[in-house]
Structure formats: C-alpha cells, structure tokens
C-alpha cells in the first residue's frame, strides 16, 4: 500500500517520458510534454524558468506577512529521487546524454562524487538495503521527494513539514534565529533552521547521522553534510525547490538539485496514518536474499 498511488503516478510519468524520449519526432507530435507552472518539467529547464517567473510573482501572505507556503504538496518531477542523475544513471564521458537529471549544478547533471564515492554508490545498490525500505527516517531533499504528500504549516517562530509516507518523518524548522544543536547530537532528520531571503524560504540542515540515502539509487552522504534548501513560490500552486548538497567528505564540490512542489488540490484531503515500520516485510525478504543492512559510508583508508 505504501507506494501504490506513487507507483501509479511514476509509472504513468515514466511511460509517457519514455514514449516521448524514444521517438522524439513522433513523440512531440503525439503528446505535448507536461508543463509545470507554464515551465518545462525537466529539472534544469524548470528551475531556470521558474525562478524567472518568481521574480514577478507576489506570493500570498500569512497574517504576519511571510509568503504563505502552507498546504499539501506533491513532487512527481522528483520521481522519489530514485535516479537523481537521470534515467541512464549518468555518463561522465557524454554529459549531454544524461536526460532529465535533477542536478542543475554542475551543469553536466552529474553528482560530483569523489571517485571512491561513485564506486560506493554502485555497491550500495548491488549489496545494501535502502535504509528507507526499513522505514528509517529520511532527510532533505528526499523527505520532500518521497511518495505521496508532505504538508507545510507555518506557525509563529517555526514551521513544520510533515511527510505522509515513510512513517511520517517530520521536520520542525525554527525561524527564530536560535543556534544549531551542539555537534555531538546527530539526528536522522538533521537539525533545521530557516530564514527568509526575500520571498524565498531558506532552510539549513546539519547534525545528520549520515546513515541514510538520498534515494533508492544508492546516492548517499556523510555526517559532514550541510543541506541548504530554497523554496520559492512560482505561482499559487507551485514552489520551485532547490537543495544544495555540501558534503566535503563525499563530493568534490557542492552540488544542487531542483524540482517542483505541486499543490495537492484534492478536496478535503487529509494525510492518513502509515504504520511503515510496523508493516515492513521487505527488509526481512531482502536480508534472506543476501542483501545487507547499510551502515554508512565506507571512507577510503
């Protein structure tokens, strides 16, 4: 049940994308590519177009004057971050052949992994169980890209983002200028502080355990990770979401992924309980077939 709605959406999207991609000339005639807020729905093109549109959009406001990002949001463009570098999983020799990568910087769409880290990503998929399969808490940006919905609510001094799938990993993001937690307190979801940069909500997250993945494609991070998210309303029903990943232990430089948050407009929608860990049977099955529990990055000696 966990992935049913998401599966359906993703399969539809992939089928559509593959049809268009395999036969670009006929595909273009058959179907117009999906647009989001009047922008192309591939990450790099969307991000560029969306930020240009945001410059002239005056977002709705909360009573205390902040841009009002509240509501329930879906992220079909992100595909659950199953393959951040695109359908082909990246091709360093031919960057132009990386279609639909979510990576908008560097411009070649590739995650600037250190060489050992690119090898570990492949090994992660081949040998290890995605910690999220075992319902372990996910952090940004995956917490914004996972199946189904997330609800943003703004309160005086803080805001909350509650994810529906994955057993409701939630974040409380303090906006009152308080310092981060001491470095020795590591959290699966990290420690988030937010502020406004004009109409853009900026969230900085540190204090991570480094024991989770960005997505089911094995993309991983260390406990040195600092995530900077930027949420900018593009129109009343769309947020441009960008996450800059700064992890000096794993990559050669900071990199950024982007996708759209699209408003869920289902009337009377309510997030429902998901007892994720309580109904997890997949982990046991995977252990039986020889997969191992993931225990974090294996840094070179």
């Amino acid at each position, binding site marked *: 049940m966990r992935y049913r709605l998401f599966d359906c959406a993703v399969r539809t999207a992939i089928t559509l994308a593959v049809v268009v991609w395999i036969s670009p000339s006929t595909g273009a005639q058959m179907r117009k590519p999906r647009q989001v807020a009047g922008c192309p729905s591939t990450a790099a093109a969307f991000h560029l177009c969306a930020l240009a549109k945001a410059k002239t959009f005056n977002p709705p406001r909360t009573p205390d004057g902040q841009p009002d990002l509240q509501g329930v949001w879906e992220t079909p463009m992100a595909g659950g971050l199953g393959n951040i570098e695109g359908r082909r999983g990246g091709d360093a020799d031919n960057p132009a052949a990386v279609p639909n990568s979510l990576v908008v910087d560097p411009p070649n769409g590739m995650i600037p992994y250190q060489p050992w880290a690119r090898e570990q990503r492949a090994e992660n998929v081949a040998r290890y169980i995605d910690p999220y399969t075992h319902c372990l808490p996910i952090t940004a940006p995956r917490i914004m890209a996972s199946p189904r919905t997330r609800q943003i609510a703004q*309160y005086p001094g803080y805001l909350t983002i509650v994810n529906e799938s994955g057993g409701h990993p939630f974040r409380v993001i303090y906006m009152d200028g308080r310092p981060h937690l001491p470095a020795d307190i590591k*959290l699966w979801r990290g420690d988030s502080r937010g502020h406004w940069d004009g109409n853009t909500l900026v969230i900085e997250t540190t204090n991570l355990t480094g024991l989770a993945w960005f997505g089911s494609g094995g993309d991983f991070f260390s406990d040195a990770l600092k995530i900077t998210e930027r949420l900018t309303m593009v129109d009343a029903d769309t947020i441009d979401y960008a996450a800059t990943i700064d992890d000096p232990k794993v990559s050669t430089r900071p990199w950024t992924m982007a996708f759209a948050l699209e408003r869920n407009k289902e009337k009377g929608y309510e997030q429902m309980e998901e007892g994720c860990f*309580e109904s997890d049977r997949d982990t046991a099955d995977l252990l039986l077939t020889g997969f191992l529990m993931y225990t974090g990055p294996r840094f070179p000696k």
Partner: protein
Amino acid sequence: MKLDRAALRKRVLSTCLPVAALCLGSLLPAAAAGQVTASQPDGVRRTADGKPDFSGIWRTMNAAAWNIQDHAAEKDVPAGRGVVEGNDIPYRPEALVKKQENFKNRATADPETKCYLPGVPRIMYMPYPFQIAQAPTQISILFEYVHAVRNIFMGSAPHYPGHIDFWLGDSRGRWEGDTLVVDVIHFNDQTWFDRAGNFHSDALHVIERYTPMGPDHIRYEATIEDPQVFTKPWKMSMLFYRQKEEHAQLLEYECFAFP
C-alpha cells in the same frame, strides 16, 4: 491492516460529504464560543480566535508508560502513583485473565518492545517530549518517540467510515469552552496501555480532554470505552508539563534504528 487508500478516499468523499455539510451547519452557532471570561485560570495563552493555545513542547512526569496503576519500583522501572481514576480497571473476567498473562510475559510481549507505535493514549505518556502545533482547523502533535504524528482534525469532517486498523486511531477534535475534546476511534488490537499488560480490543474508543491549567500545564483526561474488554468506561487523568528550557526542541528516539 493494509488499506486501499484510493478506494477509501472515494468512499469518504461519496458517503461523508453530505454528513460533513450537516455538521458544518451545526457548528456555525458555536463560532462565537471561546471568549476569555473572568473565571478563566490566569495566564492561559490564547490564539487569535480566543482558544487556549497549546503550542509548545510538553511531557508527563509520571510512570504510566510502565504501569497506569499504582506500582512500586522494579529494576529500570520507576515507582508511580496510578493515573487511573479510582485505580481499578473494570475488566471482564476473561479479559482479566489475559491481562494477568500479559503481565507475566511483559518483557517480550509488550508490542512497544518491538518499537511499534504505542497507541492512544499511551503515546501521550511515553517518557519522551512531544510538540503541539496548533491551527484552527488542525492540531498536530509531533512526538520525539519514533517520530510519531497525530493529526487532530478540527473541521467538520467526520470519522472515516468502516473500521480501519490505525495504530494511533482517527482523531476528530472540537472545543467545549476551554477544553479540547478529541474523539478517537479506528484502532487495531495490537497495542497495550502500558508495559504492565493492560490492553484493549479494536473496538477501543478514546475520548480525550485537554484543559489548560495555566500557561504551563494541561490537565489531560482519557476516557476508555471498549465493551469487548471492560464492563464499563473508565478514565485516566494526568498533567502535561511545558518544557521551559531555552531553545527546547524535539530530538529523536528512533527506536528501531538501534542495532
């Protein structure tokens, strides 16, 4: 229980909308309620619409998670005064046998030892803090323990139809003066009230009452109805204390992440 969400949503929409419309109508006259009067306890924080503002980080200071009744200390278990009014729980005879069996096997049989969501009201008196985030239409309770979330819907939408096996139930709230009253149904039969083996069936119906006792205390009462297990309703009562340390925030107790 695995739940077909799409089918359920369709059912909720088709069967509940007319009911919801009726409920909304009946709520309108109550919109003026919740004004501050002279008899209110001093210092109760209030929202813009005059309701008590429960926003903040709270926790209990009792030992109910181990045993909701009077009990002496054991290894790793603090002693505690009971939170059950009158201390007696009106079990049916066969249910009492089950409770005693549970108590004997509690070290391994308590579902909480498997890190499962501990049900309502037990989640409220686990020995970890929780945060209340309050808006007029929805009050969310976020828990440090296994990052549990309860959404208490304050609008006109009624409970979902049918029976659903939720771990934390389906919570619908309303204001009675300064008291937040939450009606919770749709439970599974997989949680206990405490480590001592007090249990319920999936017919459990919990009515919670949250009443402000000043700026930093909430009186919490939970009435327990479950005719399959108890001969009559009974009630727990305890206080929530506001966590007042500067920059208090929830951390994590990811129970099943520990090796």
